[in-house]
């Protein structure tokens, strides 16, 4: 098992990083009940861990026994019926699903499936809890219509159903939904907290972890605990015992992006653009999300630039990323950004050196 999963805290008491939130959640469920919740925070900050801990605190070990179900839902939408395939993870107390998987048909998921689930009350032998918990992931990717549908569902079935929503940025969740939930902000762990966790894992695994090296991993993790643990494990495979100044290998796609950045700065010509296009395709083929490529490319380019160009380049990055969201094919916009950068940079070089 990967360390990330192996050392995931199983209960709210064992949480190391967000102790205060965990304690608050514990207080929250102490009355055997809680309001709708909205967890938001950057990736790798521990939202899922907290949710699982919460469910366990609430329902006991039964919440751990999950089964994966892949079901096709037949939905009657007026003149035609639509088949939607959806994977759910469920225990006898909760159901977890990813409504945005259905793409533009996510509205039906919210309207029909959630309604269906919310209507039926759980079969609880002890009859303690009169409600079911629905965990919805990536609510920020839901379409406007779906979010609109969600708001009334939340009120109407509040007697038999609690929703736990989970997303990266709460700006993309409509006000109406946010105001119906108790919002829980899960911030990314600080570097000190990451070091603490690394030391904890190191001790459990019986490893010698030099303090400098731990700090090094933490600094390279972008404040994502998941990433820190993954690279810690990678380093363990690469070289053990650890040395004080062992290098943390960057992800290979990051290496690749920084190569692209070097290429762009070296030469600005249609020929080079063509070469870069091939490399960008390579990245896209390997399923690196385009906005991540653009962000990384920007940060690599910014390192190489003079101060007065930075504003301009940042502006265009934001501009093309927005375009990318509206458009269909990411490669056009990535390439447009590269071309724009080349023209700006060339203009700058000519102005500076003639």
């Amino acid at each position, binding site marked *: 098992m990967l360390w990330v999963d192996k050392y995931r805290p199983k209960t709210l008491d064992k949480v190391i990083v967000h102790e205060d939130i965990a304690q608050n959640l514990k*207080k*929250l469920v102490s*009355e055997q*009940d*809680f*309001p709708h919740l909205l967890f*938001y925070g*950057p990736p790798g900050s521990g939202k899922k861990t907290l949710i699982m801990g919460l469910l366990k605190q609430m329902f006991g070990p039964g919440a751990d026994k999950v089964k994966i179900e892949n079901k096709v839902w037949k939905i009657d*939408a*007026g003149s035609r019926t639509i088949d939607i395939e959806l994977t759910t993870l469920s225990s006898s107390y909760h159901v977890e699903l990813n409504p945005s998987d259905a793409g533009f048909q996510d509205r039906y998921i*919210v*309207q029909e499936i959630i*309604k269906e689930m919310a209507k039926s*009350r759980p079969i609880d032998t002890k*009859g303690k809890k*009169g409600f079911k918990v629905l965990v919805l992931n990536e609510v920020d990717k839901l379409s406007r219509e779906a979010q*609109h*549908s969600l*708001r*009334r*569902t939340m*009120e*109407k079935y*509040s*007697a038999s159903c609690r929703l736990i929503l989970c997303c990266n*940025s*709460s*700006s*993309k969740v409509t*006000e*109406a939904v*946010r*105001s*119906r939930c*108790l*919002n829980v*902000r*899960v911030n*990314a762990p600080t570097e000190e907290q990451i070091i603490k966790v690394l030391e904890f894992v190191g001790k459990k695994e019986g490893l010698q972890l030099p303090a400098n090296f731990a700090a090094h991993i933490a600094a390279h993790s972008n404040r994502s605990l998941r990433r820190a643990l993954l690279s810690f494990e990678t380093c363990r495979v690469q070289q053990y015992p650890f040395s004080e100044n062992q290098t943390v290998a960057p992800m290979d796609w990051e290496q690749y992006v920084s190569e692209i950045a070097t290429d762009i700065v070296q030469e600005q010509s249609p020929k080079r653009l063509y070469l870069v296009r091939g490399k960008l395709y390579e990245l896209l083929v390997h399923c690196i999300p385009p*906005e991540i490529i*653009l*962000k990384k490319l*920007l940060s690599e380019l910014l390192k190489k630039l003079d*101060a*007065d160009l*930075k*504003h*301009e380049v*940042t*502006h265009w*990055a*934001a501009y093309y*990323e*927005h375009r990318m969201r*509206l458009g269909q094919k990411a490669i056009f916009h990535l390439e447009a950004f590269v071309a724009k950068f080349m*023209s*700006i*940079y060339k*203009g700058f070089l000519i*102005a500076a050196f003639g």
Partner: protein
Amino acid sequence: MAPLVQSSQPWVEKYRPRQVKDVAHQDEVVRVLTNTLETSNCPHMLFYGPPGTGKTTTALAIAHQLFGPELYKSRVLELNASDDRGINVVRTKIKDFAAVAVGSGGRQGIYPCPPFKIIILDEADSMTEDAQNALRRTMETHSKVTRFFFICNYISRIIEPLASRCAKFRFKPLSEEIMSSRIIHICKEEGLNLDPEALSTLGSISQGDLRRAITYLQGAARLFGSSISSKDLLSVSGVVPPDVVKALLLACKIGDFEKANKEVSNFIAEGYPVSQMLSQLFDIIVEAEDITDEQKARICKKLAETDKCLVDGADEYLQLMDVACTTTRALSNMSEEFCYE
């Protein structure tokens, strides 16, 4: 259904006014509707206004008061965005319901039971234009036996022909005194201890949205027990702490790109919502005295554009960086055009 535990009910539902006269702060509507209760006649209605001002509450309350629990099921059709409301539903379900004749009525006990049915269309602004168009004729032909209540946030999204067939009522955002009196009432009922400072914080963070205020209150009560300070409320509401906003603005003022970049990265890592940041930044910029009008205009324009981009789903980090760059350029009076385009 098993009897519900009292605590499982959200306070928003628990303290929803049951009678029209209990609806706070919306005097015109209340007057018209009380009149309706007496004369048992009313026009089609259109309620619009910001969230949390009592639109749905009013509509439900009047329906309950007119018909009472027994007739309610057969006389009132409530549809909202969680039900499918495409053009098909308008053509079949709504039309069929609207066409059914009702008896001449007459009072039943304390309920007036007027001889018409009510169709409540909640969140009507999320209906498609086609569906709204399909309603036009239905409204007129069945006006003898059916009244429509439309509820929406933005009246501009209701097509003109529909709006002109209704009596329009705007629901005003609640003033702070009214909110406080309601909040204090709930605190008393729930046995909470709220100091005056926390009360005013609650008023300012909820911006006239009573539902939001009550939700925050309940959240804070659940998390922090029965005595609530203003700090607890802030942490529940997801408002960005003012010093974080000021730090970013300072970085922009001194024109340090690296520092601004670091602030933005930190901000994203802390998981605050960028839209919240934009609105708080906006408040500070508009009120700032050391920024010229032209600079303010430039920054505000950017904030507006960014808000639109965020709604379209653009990346938060890049957008906030863009705002920071524009702000820096505006504050140091650099030209609006980039030089190397």
